[in-house]
């Protein structure tokens, strides 16, 4: 059965983020009310994905290297590794390096359950690997091509691992052509356990309602969302099962696509050990 390989330190998987840093990303996110630029949302989404992945792999003794991780930015500066700080310039690193080498760590406030039906504010440390950037065109086609190269090399060394997951975070407006074919080429790469999974997080200026893991493009608000939906892999069965258990409304053939919503939940769908159900 595909997508059933155990993710372990001897058989790690791979997580590659493609981050749109083009000029259009300086526009506001999600309509007039948010007060945030798309570029800030992209940086937040990327940092939170990396944080959650690290936490997922952290054990008492430290971070287990269940994943190799890369962050590729695409915009006016070309297409290049986008991690800031000590990992600048690196294409793929072990998840333990991600955890121990953020560019900096900020303090943020977070509301948590106090156990008695209320919320209390908690100060937490918020590591940053990627800062907001927005300049130039959106060479998505080329970015998908670079991902193809990086993963081809990785796959040659890990032919039986759980297939790599690529998350493309963008406002969807590719300026170097139709990315559909490049996306298909990337998804045609595989290990013995299945094809590379390409998920897309569409952060738009549109105030349309967020959509998570749709199975039908008719629900989507514009042509960019439709294109990214068609470029997205279907969620493998076990990920869909976990999504259902997490209370997400996902139907058969749901795709790894999210419009103006949070894609951090994808990290919860990665299966590396027993995890308690969250109470809602």
């Amino acid at each position, binding site marked *: 059965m595909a997508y059933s390989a155990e993710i372990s330190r001897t058989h790690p998987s791979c997580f590659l983020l493609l981050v749109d840093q083009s000029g259009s990303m300086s526009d506001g996110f999600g309509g007039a009310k948010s007060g945030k630029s798309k570029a800030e949302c992209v940086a937040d989404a990327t940092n939170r994905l990396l944080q959650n992945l690290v936490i997922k792999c*952290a054990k*008492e003794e430290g971070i287990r290297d269940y994943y190799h991780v890369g962050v590729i930015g695409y915009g006016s500066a070309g297409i290049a590794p986008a991690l800031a700080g000590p990992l600048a310039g690196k294409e793929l690193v072990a998840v333990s390096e991600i*955890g121990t080498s953020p560019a900096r760590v900020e303090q943020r406030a977070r509301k948590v*359950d106090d*156990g008695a039906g209320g919320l209390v504010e908690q100060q*937490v*440390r918020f590591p940053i690997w990627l800062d907001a950037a927005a300049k130039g065109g959106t060479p998505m086609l080329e970015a998908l091509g670079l991902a193809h190269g990086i993963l081809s090399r990785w796959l040659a060394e890990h032919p039986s691992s759980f297939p790599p997951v690529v998350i493309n975070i963008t406002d969807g407006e590719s300026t170097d052509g139709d990315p559909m074919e490049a996306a298909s080429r990337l998804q045609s790469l595989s290990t013995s356990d299945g094809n590379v999974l390409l998920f897309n997080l569409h952060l738009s200026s549109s105030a349309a309602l967020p959509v998570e893991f749709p199975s039908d493009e008719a629900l989507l608000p514009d042509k960019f969302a439709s294109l990214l939906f068609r470029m997205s892999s279907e969620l493998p069965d076990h990920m869909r099962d976990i999504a259902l*258990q997490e209370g997400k409304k996902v139907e058969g053939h749901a795709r790894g696509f999210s419009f103006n919503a949070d894609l951090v939940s994808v990290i919860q769908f990665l299966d590396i050990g027993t*995890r*308690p159900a969250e109470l809602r």
Partner: protein
Amino acid sequence: MADGATESSYAGVWARLLVERFAAGEIELATAADFLSDVASLESLWRGAVLTPNLPWFAEEKILQGASAAFLGLTLAGEQGALAWRAVAVGDACLALVRDGELLQSFPWERAEDLGSRPVLLSSAPRNRTRLLEHVRLTGGPCAPGDELFLMTDGLARWFLESYAGGDKPWHILAGIASDSEEQFAPWVAELREAGVMRNDDVTLTALRIP
């Protein structure tokens, strides 16, 4: 019996704390609310045991998320010949009561299918206790001489319930292992894993016979 969840950090410390405090009689099981309130008082003990200065951000975050464990508690009270049992369960551990060679009750799960892969567990981080209340299961009853009680973690419980559903009497095997030698347990579990009838997971069995 407590079984820590692998994905949380220091779940072993939490599981041990739950078992020690329960055995010391510090966790009430008169009502689900009493039980949860006593468990909540252990949260700070757990944090005190695992929070150390200068932790990296991810270790601190993991501790803020809390550790989780399945919990199954059993008490026996009264005089010999007139004992009563009472049990509390949260999560995917399971208790089987066998009387006169037949399964009288399996608690809180009756079918292997009930043991999902995402159980609700006891967490060391504050959780909404009002919502957790319905997941705390309590039961009990009189004991009869010769009663056998088996406390099982999820992997073993799943095997037990599947085997029972298939018409077998798996308690004979468990009683045999329990009365012969503890050393037989690990090789027997290894065999079941090899045969693909038990998942590769930590397995614990506690067996009691009422005199």
